[in-house]
C-alpha cells in the first residue's frame, strides 16, 4: 500500500519544510508537564519498561522500532528498516501528526499541535531518559491492577460485556485501536487508567465509569481467551 514510500517521502521532505526547533532549544521542565498524556502509554527514566508503548529511554538518536520485546506495528518496523534513527526532526514530525508521518502506526495519539510544545517534549525526553536508565526486566502492575488480575474473571460474563465494545473496536481496526491482541496486564491497566481518568478520553471514560473490578476482570478473561 505504499506505506514505506510515504514514510520515506515524509522524511525526505522534512528537511525542506520548516523543521521544528532542535531539542537544545526546548524547555525540559515544561516538557515534563506536557509528557503527562504520553505517560498513559510510555514510561521514561530509571526502571522504565514497555507498557502500551515502548519505553522511551534514549529515544533521541535511538533506531526506530528497536526496543527488544516490544511488538511494533508493521508500519513502524518498516519505518525503521535500515537502522534509521529518531533525530530531532523525525521526532518533531512524528509527534506533530503520528498517523500522517507513519501511516498505520499503532500509536493512538492525535499529535501535538504546537511546535514549541514539541521542542519542550523532545528536550524533556532527552534529559529524563538517558540511555543508562536501563529498563528493568519485568513490569510490575500497580496494586489496583494486580488486584484485578488476581480475580478469577468470569469469561462468559466478559463475553456478554464485550458486546458493548465491539460496536467500536474491531479486529484489525486502526481508526479505533484493536483491543483483542493486548496482553491482559496492559488491557486491565488501560481500563483502570480510563476509569480513574489518569487517561483522558470522553468515550472510554464514560464506558469505564460503570465497570467495577469484577467487570474489568471478566472482560480481561474474555479478551485473553478470545485469542
Amino acid at each position, binding site marked *: 500500500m505504499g506505506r514505506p514510500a510515504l514514510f520515506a517521502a515524509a522524511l525526505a521532505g522534512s528537511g525542506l519544510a520548516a523543521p521544528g526547533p532542535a531539542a537544545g532549544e526546548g524547555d525540559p521542565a515544561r516538557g515534563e508537564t506536557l509528557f503527562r498524556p504520553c505517560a498513559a502509554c510510555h514510561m521514561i527514566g530509571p526502571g522504565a519498561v514497555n507498557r502500551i508503548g515502548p519505553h522511551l529511554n534514549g529515544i533521541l538518536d535511538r533506531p526506530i522500532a528497536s526496543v527488544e520485546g516490544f511488538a511494533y506495528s508493521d508500519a513502524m518496523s518498516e519505518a525503521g528498516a535500515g537502522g534509521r534513527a529518531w533525530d530531532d526532526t523525525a521526532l518533531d514530525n512524528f509527534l506533530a501528526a503520528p498517523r500522517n508521518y507513519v501511516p498505520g502506526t499503532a500509536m493512538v495519539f492525535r499529535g501535538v499541535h504546537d511546535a514549541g510544545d514539541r521542542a519542550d517534549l523532545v528536550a524533556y525526553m532527552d534529559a529524563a531518559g538517558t540511555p543508562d536508565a536501563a529498563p528493568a526486566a519485568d513490569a510490575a502492575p500497580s496494586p489496583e491492577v494486580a488486584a484485578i488480575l488476581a480475580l478469577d474473571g468470569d469469561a462468559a460474563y466478559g463475553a*456478554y460485556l464485550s*458486546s458493548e465494545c465491539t*460496536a*467500536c*473496536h474491531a479486529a484489525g*481496526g486502526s481508526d*479505533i485501536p484493536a483491543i483483542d491482541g493486548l496482553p491482559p496486564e496492559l488491557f486491565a491497566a488501560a481500563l483502570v487508567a480510563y476509569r480513574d481518568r489518569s487517561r483522558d478520553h470522553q*468515550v472510554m471514560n*464514560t*464506558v469505564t465509569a460503570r465497570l467495577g473490578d469484577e467487570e474489568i476482570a471478566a472482560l480481561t478473561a474474555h479478551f485473553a481467551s478470545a485469542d
Partner: protein
Amino acid sequence: MGVSRRVFLGTAAAALAAPMVVRAQNRPRVVVVGGGAGGATAARYIANDSQGGIDVTLVEPSRAYYTCFFSNLYLGGFREFDSLGHGYGGLATGGINVVHDWATGIDRDAKTVALAGGGSLPYDRLVLSPGIDFVEDSVPGWSLASQNAMPHAYKAGSQTELLRAQIEAMPEGGVFAMVAPPNPYRCPPGPYERVSMVAHYLREHNPSATILIADPKESYSKQGLFEDGWQTHYAGMIQRIGPDFGGGNVEVDPAAMTLTIDGQVENVDVCNVIPAQRAGGIVHAAALNDGDWAPVSAYDLSSREDPEIHILGDSAAQGAMPKSGFAANSQAKVAANAIVAALADGRAFPPRFSNTCWSLIDTDDGVKVGATYEASDEGIVSVDSFVSQIGESAEVRAETYRESLGWYDAITADMFG
C-alpha cells in the same frame, strides 16, 4: 482523506444469501423481521450465542442494506455511495436463514408471520426491528407520491442518491430547503449533520447558494455545536426558522417547487421534506403500538402487549435512548441475551446499553454525543453522558472524526458479519 479505502462488497455478497427455509423440528425458532441495524444484530447474536441451538430466520425484502448512518457524508462528498451498502452473505454464512420477502401480518395466537410471497413462518419468539414509516399528512402538500420531487432521504438508498443528484443540479445561487421533523424521529442530529454536509458541498461547488430550514422544534441535538460550526465554516449561508417564526407551520407544493412558511411562499430548488415518523407498519398491523410507537419493557425489549415479541430500534418506545443505529445494535444484544436464556438455557446477564452519535460539520471537524444506560421499570434510563465542547482544538475534532470512521467499520461488521 481517503474516502474510498473502505469498500464493501454489498450486492455481490447478497447473491450468496439464497433463502432456504429448512427447519429442524426440535430446535426453538426465532423469526426476525427487518434486516437493518437492530434486526441484523439480533439475528447474528442469537445464532452465535445459542451456538446453533436456535433456528433463526431473518425476513428482509432488500438484497443489500444501505445505511442511513454516514449517508449524509455521501451527500457531502466524504464517502462513496457503494461504501454504504451491506449484503446478507455474512448472516447466511453464520447459519441464519435469510428470506428476502416482506412480512405482511402477524398471527399472535398461532404465533406465525405471514409473508407477501405466500406462506408463513412459525416462531417461538419474534423480533421486530422494522425501523420507521412516515406519518401521513404531517407535512401538508407532501405524500409518498411526491418523494421524487421532494425527497426525504430518511430511508437510505435510491432516495439518498436522488437528493445528491438534485443538489448537484441546483442553479448557481439556488435555494436548498429542508422541512425538519418534529420529535421523536430517527437520529436526532441527522437533519443538522445533513445541513452541514450540504453546506460543505455548496461552498465548494455553488458558494452563492443558500440553505433554508423550517423547523417545528424549539431546540435540537448538539445545537450549540452545529450553530458554532455553521458560523465558523458557512457564515451567512444557513437560515433556520424555528417555531417562534412559524417554522412549524409549513406547506409544500411539489409541482410548483414552493415551500410556504407561515403564509410566506418561497421558491426553492431542492426541498428535502423529512416528515413526522412512527413505528414501521408491521408493528401497527399487529396492534403492538400505543399511538405512533411500540411500548416495550426496558429489561428485554419485549412488547408490553405480547411478551413473546421483542421490538427493537427506531420502532420501540423504550425510554431515554435516541433512535439511532448504535442504540438499535445495543438493544439487540440485550434482547438476544434474554431470548437465548429463555429458549436455549443461556446465562442471563443484567441489561446494559450505550450509544454514541458522531456528526461531521466540515472536513475533519467531527463532534459526538453519547451516554450509557440501564433498565428500570419505567423504561431505559441514562446513567452517564458526554458531549463534545465548543472551542475544542482542531486536533480533537479531527480525532473525533477518525473515531467515527473506526466506529462505522466496527459496527457494520458487528451487524452484518
